[in-house]
């Protein structure tokens, strides 16, 4: 396929608000995972990757009045979207020619879980009922900036943002749009913190992807958006691409609702398709940003998938989830931004907290490493086996 250009990006996570803070943390191995500080929950035993801003602080930064109806997922989305639009030199007047596709699973659940009993038995907080669903969250994020040509929402758990990127690219390829802003946003909620805890896949220690002692994931939150653009449109607007989306794959593991297959079938197919779409060989991949959650199951399954595809020549791999926690629906776009930074700066993000090789697993990048990169693979795998993989490349000169 002809590559799709990436002409702007914006990111918010536990390691910073905006590209500059984020890159600095990645280069200096500074994790944003720590004790719970923002979410009001009993479960203080779990380290998390929270965005270091209260809702009120985010509203203040965005110039939104205190009394406005907002949700945390939408606020983080707005911060990331603001940066992406600015980065791509897109003004409000241009938005009617621009699409917006966002991925989320929790939507407005951060409010609903607080007000649920009120919703049932009183009139209090009923103005938040209409913003519980995922689509409303996307629209709240988009409406802040203007009237986009179209908006829609993907919800495939931890691969939502990656799939939003795939949809945007397909729309450009079919001539349905020239510019689409794509990505995802998700805040931590009591709902899914407790949900993951009931599945016993949270670690009370900082997560250690691909490590023999790994015992689970740390939840995170954040948002990131990429501006995808056709070559003709970028030429017309005289904007330089930051990276290219050369290929992508989406496959279903079809194994279990919450566990990945031992041989990583879905992951294998998704990565293979991404390479085939891009027309590149496994040996051309310089780095893989793994899904690497730190659960016993994912890291074993993903290792198998990588070994099946790359044989003895698995390229350097790391999971950046020890930096940010698992940002669930937003992880596909947040980690795509990390991949683009790696391409631009020529470095391999470190797989923090790793020390012991796991049985039959890959050995990740555990030391700071400079390396010129041309093609990188970014994996995002969701509950239910919704597996996606993005192939990002340095722009052709």
């Amino acid at each position, binding site marked *: 396929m002809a590559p799709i250009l990436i002409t702007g990006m914006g990111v918010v996570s536990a390691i910073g608000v905006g590209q500059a803070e984020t890159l600095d943390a990645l280069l200096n191995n500074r994790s944003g995972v720590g004790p719970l500080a923002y979410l009001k929950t009993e479960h203080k035993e779990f380290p998390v990757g929270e965005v270091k801003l209260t809702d009120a602080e985010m509203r203040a930064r965005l110039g939104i009045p205190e009394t406005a109806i907002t949700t945390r997922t939408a606020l983080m989305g707005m911060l990331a979207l603001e940066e992406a639009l600015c980065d791509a030199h897109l003004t409000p007047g241009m938005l009617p020619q621009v699409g917006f596709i966002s991925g989320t699973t929790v939507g407005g659940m951060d409010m609903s879980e607080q007000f649920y009993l009120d919703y049932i038995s009183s009139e209090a907080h009923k103005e938040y009922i209409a913003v519980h669903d995922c689509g409303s969250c996307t629209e709240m994020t988009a409406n802040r900036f203007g009237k986009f040509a179209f908006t829609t929402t993907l919800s495939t758990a931890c691969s939502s943002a990656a799939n939003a990127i795939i949809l945007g690219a397909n729309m450009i390829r079919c001539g349905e749009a020239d510019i689409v802003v794509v990505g995802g946003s998700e805040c931590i909620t009591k709902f899914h913190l407790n949900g993951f805890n*009931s599945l016993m896949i949270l670690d009370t220690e900082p997560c250690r992807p691909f490590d023999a002692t790994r015992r689970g994931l740390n939840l995170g939150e954040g948002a990131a958006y990429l501006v995808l653009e056709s070559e003709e449109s970028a030429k017309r607007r005289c904007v330089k691409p930051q990276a290219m989306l050369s290929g992508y794959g989406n496959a279903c593991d079809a194994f*279990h*609702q*919450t*566990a990945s297959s031992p041989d990583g079938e879905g992951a294998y197919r998704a990565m293979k398709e991404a390479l085939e779409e891009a027309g590149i060989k496994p040996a051309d991949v310089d780095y893989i940003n793994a899904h690497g959650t730190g659960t016993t199951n994912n890291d074993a399954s993903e290792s198998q998938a990588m070994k099946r595809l790359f044989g003895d020549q698995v390229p350097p791999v790391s999971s950046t989830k020890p930096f940010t926690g698992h940002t669930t629906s937003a992880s596909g776009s947040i980690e795509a931004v990390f991949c683009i930074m790696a391409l631009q700066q020529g470095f391999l993000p470190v797989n923090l907290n790793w020390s012991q090789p796991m049985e039959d697993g890959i050995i990740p990048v555990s030391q700071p490493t400079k390396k010129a990169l041309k093609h990188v693979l970014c994996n995002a795998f969701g509950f239910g086996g919704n597996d996606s993989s993005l192939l990002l490349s340095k722009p052709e000169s």
Partner: protein
Amino acid sequence: MDELIYTLKQQIIEALNLEDMTPEDIDENASLFGEGLGLDSIDALELIVLMEKNYGIKLKDPAQGKEIFKSVAVMADFISKNRTK
């Protein structure tokens, strides 16, 4: 022990939503997972919740369940030795 086994069967039926079953349908020595009742890893997590809720026994590692949940009889034996409620 018989009383505990019967009660446990009732609690398992409720926790796992085995709507059409009665305690008499469950053989306490038959395996709960795989061939026997055909339960899976999510059911094992539900049984972990059941153990803590009804008997005050907290399992930190889901892998411990493999041995403890072999059958109702094995489960009852473990509970009688470790219960705090």
